[in-house]
């Protein structure tokens, strides 16, 4: 079974530029998550989708971050404009359903973003 795919794996941009990350979840997984992992910290949930609807975006900085999951499959996370503090690894995860006690979240390898 193919895992969660993410691209690009690495990205370096200057502050105030824009950037987009792509995630392809495991086939059939209805729930998709985007996490931000700053160096030395644990991942923090940014946004959660159930199919193509948003379940939780309470920690997404909506003035600069946006995400979509058109057709309930692939997802894109965008940052515009980027700030230095956005330097982090952005992780995508997917699961069959959102009950985390019953359905494991599978994580992709992440995209490492460096903002200079």
């Amino acid at each position, binding site marked *: 079974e193919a*895992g*969660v795919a993410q691209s690009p794996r690495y990205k370096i941009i200057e502050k105030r530029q824009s950037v987009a990350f792509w995630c392809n979840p495991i086939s059939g997984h209805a*729930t998709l998550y985007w996490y931000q992992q700053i160096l*030395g*910290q*644990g*991942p*923090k*949930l940014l946004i*959660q989708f159930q199919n193509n609807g948003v*379940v*939780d975006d309470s920690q997404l900085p909506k003035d600069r971050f946006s995400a979509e999951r058109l057709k309930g499959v692939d997802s894109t996370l965008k940052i515009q404009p980027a700030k230095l503090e956005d330097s982090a690894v952005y*992780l995508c*995860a997917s*699961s069959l*359903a*959102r*009950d*985390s*006690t*019953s*359905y*494991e*979240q*599978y*994580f*992709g*390898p*992440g995209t490492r973003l460096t903002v200079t």
Partner: protein
Amino acid sequence: AQSVTQLDSHVSVSEGTPVLLRCNYSSSYSPSLFWYVQHPNKGLQLLLKYTSAATLVKGINGFEAEFKKSETSFHLTKPSAHMSDAAEYFCVVSELKSNTGKLIFGQGTTLQVKP
């Protein structure tokens, strides 16, 4: 609000010796607790989970963890460390409120295994 605290940011053991990674949690509800492992340049992988069944949970690669409600702890152990165990380990609690399945991660513990 739910949270987890990993008591050690870095643990170093010799190969073949026991591993202990400590985690305390805070929760207003009966929590679901997890341990995830992250190897360099690899995705996070679930080691084990506790979901209100047996308090001693066995996971992959010989790891296990014991849920102790009286101590609000969920420490991860392994009898004998292997070089391949060197990685970052995260203790995680599931936010039960609103049933979103949201995971709340601790800060992580780096496990170093010396030959």
